């Protein structure tokens, strides 16, 4: 098994940790469960999803999924940088991470803004895959313009009463819980008056979930309808009406995940292997692949910087998530197009030994990379206005 080198001056503990992880994966993670994309195992067959769910729970029990969490919630109390190093290896080994919304979006917010009861109730279950989470933000009329959303959650005694519809919710077909962004102040408009609520999807009357099939052929997301669905007040995360600020943080965590760049490195390595196995590799192809490696490594260098900054100061530069997002989404698209060009008509049938994925699947997922988590255009606007101070 090839492994991913960091090119960093790791501490002895970090180096030992990564060796141990790779030995662990050699022993427990068979290549036939490798996935095409790090965080989409819920698109797979029921059987495959079940296997991954159990394997993710095992990873958590054995201390590999949440190394940066406090020990009282099952973590090892390590730094965000350590977590990133671990997640890079997991990505490189194509280990599917089922609960991306729970682990990488909700958990950081709960750790920062959640009540003791909320942390006790959910954090361990998130790690152990006892609660699979989805993220209910987008609406049919509110995509890029998220703060125009219309779903309401109106306070009625000990509950919020939710009405409206969410759409494109990844994981919802498998999830037990949703982190919902809704308007709690009916008089408000725009980013004010929104709140984050945790919704128990399977035990709340008035919640309907409709699967949506995507161009890959699989069900990859859902639309949900809420009709007078009652959510207990204690499921409010962070201050009421201030959910936008908290959810911005949620989205930023989505964006700085290291996973993508490391997975892309694996893609390039696999592509090199495929190309070498087929033919002599001419100069133009070498240059194209070399350029891809350079771009992936630049993106990784940037993620290392961001994780180091986060570990040392608890913050990162305001435009960092947008820069990362734009770089990675371009990479994703260009990489799969190069794979189609190099593998030609074999792209649908080529498989690495024993693997459970192919480049054609990656090609089909690739349009999402420009769109999900805020489109490339929106991130250009964010960098231009917030960082460079350009006029809107």
């Amino acid at each position: 098994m090839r492994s991913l080198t960091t090119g960093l001056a790791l501490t002895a503990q970090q180096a030992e940790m990564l060796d141990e992880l790779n030995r662990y994966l050699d022993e427990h993670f068979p290549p036939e469960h490798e996935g095409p994309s790090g965080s989409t195992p819920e698109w797979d067959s029921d059987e495959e999803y079940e296997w991954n769910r159990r394997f993710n729970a095992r990873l958590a029990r054995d201390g590999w999924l949440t190394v940066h969490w406090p020990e009282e919630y099952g973590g090892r109390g390590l730094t965000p940088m350590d977590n990133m190093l671990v997640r890079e290896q997991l990505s490189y080994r194509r280990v599917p991470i089922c609960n991306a919304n729970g682990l990488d979006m909700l958990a950081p917010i709960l750790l920062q803004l959640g009540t003791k009861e909320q942390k006790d109730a959910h954090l361990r279950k998130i790690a152990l895959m006892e609660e699979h989470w989805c993220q209910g933000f987008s609406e049919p009329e509110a995509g890029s313009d998220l703060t125009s959303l219309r779903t309401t959650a109106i306070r009625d005694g000990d509950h919020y009463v939710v009405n409206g519809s969410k759409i494109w919710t990844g994981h919802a077909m498998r999830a037990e819980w949703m982190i919902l962004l809704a308007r709690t102040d009916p008089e408000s408009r725009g980013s004010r008056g929104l709140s984050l609520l945790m919704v128990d999807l399977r035990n709340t009357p008035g919640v309907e979930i409709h699967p949506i099939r995507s161009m890959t052929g699989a069900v990859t997301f859902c639309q949900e309808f809420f009709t007078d669905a009652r959510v207990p007040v204690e499921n409010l995360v962070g201050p009421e009406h201030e959910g936008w600020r908290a959810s911005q943080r949620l989205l930023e965590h989505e964006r700085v995940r290291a996973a993508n760049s490391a997975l892309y490195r694996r893609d390039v390595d696999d592509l090199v292997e495929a190309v070498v196995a087929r033919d002599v590799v001419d100069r133009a192809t070498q240059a194209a692949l070399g350029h891809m490696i350079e771009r992936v490594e630049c993106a990784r260098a940037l993620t290392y910087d961001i994780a180091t900054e986060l570990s040392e100061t608890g913050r990162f530069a305001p435009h960092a998530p947008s820069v990362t997002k734009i770089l990675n989404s371009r990479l994703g698209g260009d990489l799969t197009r190069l794979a189609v060009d190099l593998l030609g008509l074999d792209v649908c049938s080529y498989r690495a030994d024993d693997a459970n994925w192919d480049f054609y699947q990656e090609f089909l997922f690739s349009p999402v990379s420009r769109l999900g988590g805020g489109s490339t255009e929106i991130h250009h606007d964010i960098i231009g206005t917030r960082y460079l101070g350009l006029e809107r």
Partner: protein
Amino acid sequence: MPHIALGGEDRTDEQRDLRMELRRLLTRLWSDDHARELADGDRTTGAKLAAVLEHDIALGALLVPEELGGHGGGCVEAAVAAEELGAASAPSRLLGDAMSAHLLATSGDAELHRRLRRVVEDGVPAAVVWPAQDATWDLHQIHPVEITGAGASGRFRYVAEALDAALLLVPARRGAEFGLLLLDLSREGSGVELHPAKGADVLRPLGGLTVAGPTGEWVGLAEPQRVFTETVALGAIVLAAEMIGAARSCIERMATYAGQREQFGRTIGSFQALRHQIVDALVAWEAARAMTYRAAAGFAAMTRGTARIDDVEPMARMAKAAASDALGEASETCIHVYGAIGFTWENPVHLAFKRWAASAQIFGSPTEQRVRVCQHAIINAGGRAGGALRVAG
């Protein structure tokens, strides 16, 4: 829907009539719902359309010379039909029909002319078995079927439109002689094995073919290399035109949607960052479309004897490469403009995106075409292509 295409005017009445008739017919018979049914695996969906294309338009006779019972159309007519079929995401046998008609007609062989007449009279679906991954278009650089005393033997990993054909025209070699092996699938039993191959494009399934044993009918050709290179060049132009059509539909769809969908209180098409991407796709498409019809006109001139294959071949390659890039850009941008809706199965854009993954590769990827266009230029400049550039693949 905006009317696009700078060079949109067809040069002759026949071309315009063909385009209009096809548009009318496809509007009536082939909606996005049909394309979706086909994508869902319903193989009966295309039957009605296929029958009408065969009987009302006689697409199979389009490129057959009038003296052999056909319509006497040329490569431009094939491109017109391909563009319209491509724009409608409609399945057809145009590629196989056009290539077979040209091969049989241009062979100059009386027996093959008789075969072509029968193909037209009986409406026999025919296909030329040229390896779809090949970018050389050169009979001496592929592996034709070998014919010996023991029979024929050969393998083709991917062949376009062979699966539902009744007559296969297979490049073959007997000793030092090159020619054709005719396989009449209604009669051949053992010795011919056709099986579906995994592919991206549901509208044009690829098949693998194995020939082994005493089967088929050998016909020697007087100018085998010219005949096959021309035939594959024609196929490349047809594929280019079909991709031009598919790209046109993507551009029309995204322009329409961008004018309707609102975010931030405005139509998304009013955001320059998005509008310019749509426009860039259009600009690339205009140039590629012009090149495609230029190559088609060049091919038609060659068929009439007023142009040479040496000049037409690079044009066909450039058309194929440019049209591939145009479809790649238009389909990907279209999915993006639609947002998450563009990623759904319900929205038919993915058919164009997937078609690109296959059509851009058949008879050579854009990269492979460009290498050969450059080699052609090097030879014209007095250089030696093989020495100056190492050829990939």
